[in-house]
């Protein structure tokens, strides 16, 4: 189902006299039905806040999020959500964790067990049904989380740096599992990451955020057929382009508070290495 984010703004109230801070300054993008959109941005740019708004966990100050023709106004089963930190229930086994959403949906025990097993197979975790979470690795936990989210057949899956805490090899393996799964389920995905490699490998589109207040600074379609070659020339070129954009954002965010009254914008770009510190010292 198509997901549209339209002009989403979000600020945090200031404390004692401070006017508060605008985190999201009007974010707009769309994820077509079955598409994978990677949201890439410098850390602290409000990516998680954005995803929480899409998930219905937080309210936008302005703007709206729609899936299909429905406006998101709270959490709903059609929208799955996976985070970096595991949110699995540690007192449940792998299988009964995957069954959780089906339990809430009132599915019969036999049927939800069958569905949960199928989902575990899909993420290549068959045979781990009775394991407790303390017995499995971080990568496996994220697979369980993926299986749990998929079990209720969401139309949109939101992923907030789900593989960020994993080592590079596990991360690559999970990216491939994810693509393989999505080929089958055709779920629309919004995948937030700060990792350029991950974004260009996974995304049909990569949406780049600016520094705060965050807006979409750049949106690139990745026209590379899958399976993609991680180190092939197409992805490398794209990577270069995106890294350059991110570097520019980093620079802007450092100089932003002072450049308004101390420096003309052109001067900041001229000597990127030293200027931010000098400007701060003044």
């Amino acid at each position, binding site marked *: 189902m198509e997901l549209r984010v339209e002009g989403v703004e979000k600020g945090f109230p200031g404390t004692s006299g401070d006017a508060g801070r605008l985190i999201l300054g009007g974010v707009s993008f769309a994820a077509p039905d079955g598409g994978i959109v990677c949201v890439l941005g410098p850390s602290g740019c409000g990516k998680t806040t954005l995803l929480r708004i899409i*998930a*219905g*966990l937080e309210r936008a100050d302005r703007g709206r999020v729609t899936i299909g023709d429905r406006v998101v106004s709270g*959490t709903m*089963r059609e*929208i*799955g*959500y996976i*985070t970096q*930190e595991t*949110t*699995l*229930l*540690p*007192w*449940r086994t792998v299988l009964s964790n995957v069954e*959780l*959403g089906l*339990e*809430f*949906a009132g599915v019969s025990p036999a049927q939800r067990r069958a569905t949960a097993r199928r989902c575990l197979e899909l993420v290549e975790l068959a045979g781990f049904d009775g394991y*407790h*979470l*303390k017995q499995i690795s971080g990568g496996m936990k994220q697979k369980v989380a993926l299986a*749990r989210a998929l079990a*209720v057949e969401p139309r949109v899956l939101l992923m907030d740096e789900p593989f960020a805490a994993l080592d590079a090899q596990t991360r690559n393996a999970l990216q491939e599992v994810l693509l393989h799964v999505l080929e089958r389920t055709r779920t629309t995905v919004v995948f937030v990451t700060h990792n350029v490699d991950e974004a260009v490998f996974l995304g049909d589109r990569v949406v780049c955020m600016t520094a705060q207040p965050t807006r979409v600074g750049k949106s690139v379609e990745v026209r590379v057929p899958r399976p993609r070659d991680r180190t092939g020339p197409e992805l490398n070129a794209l990577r270069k382009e995106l890294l350059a954009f991110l570097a520019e954002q980093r620079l802007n965010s450092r100089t932003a508070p002072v450049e308004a009254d101390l420096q003309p914008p052109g001067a900041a770009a001229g000597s990127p290495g030293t200027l931010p510190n000098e400007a701060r010292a003044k």
Partner: protein
Amino acid sequence: MVSGGRWRFPLQLAPLVAAGLLWEAFGAAGIIPENRLPPPSHVLSGLAEMVTRGLPPGSHLLGHCVASLRRVLGGVVAALAVGIPLGLLMGRSAWLRSLVNPFVELLRPIPPLAWVPLAILWLGIGDGSAVFIIFLGAFFPILLNTVAGVRAIERGLIEAAIILGASRRELFLKVLAPGALPATITGVRIAIGVGWMTLVAAEFTGVKSGYGLGYMIMTARDIQRADQIVAGMLVIGLIGFAMDALIRAAERRLLRWR
């Protein structure tokens, strides 16, 4: 594990046995006077007498144990029935917390025994007021630990369950209650300890049925049987130890996932 398994229990028992032997020897040598602290051999024979003849005669030890156990369990179960649901709700709702907390903080420092006069006024002398007093002692540890347990559950777990479609009821039963369980069990262990302390003291003030370990100890005092006073204390210690062992066994089973 070398220290665990087969040898753990004997190893734990050895120092106790050694202390007992030492105590007996000191008694026999006259270092500990008999009328201050009778030696273990006298305590054991006093204990045997309480089993066979009873104290007062006819009121056997088992009857005292059952009566006291019933009161403790009655009070603790009542505390669980109120403390867990209220604790789960308070853990989740800041509003309810700020409503209830002033009452909790005002009532909690009052020793349960200070309620004895009121309990007797309201419920008369008997099991009703004993259970009520134990309830008061057991309630706060269970409540406060459950509240803390709920608040320690990571927000992400709760949000994930909500996104997956948990109803309010399901959230409480399938996420908050099991998530708070380790803390709740700690509360129950404290509650049972407090329950025994309170109970024996409450029974000192009188019981109607003529049964109860506290009552039994007071009877021993009245007839100046130091051996049976100590024997009664020992019985309470053993029951408390056994109950805590049971809870720890249950804890290991319930919290195997940890």
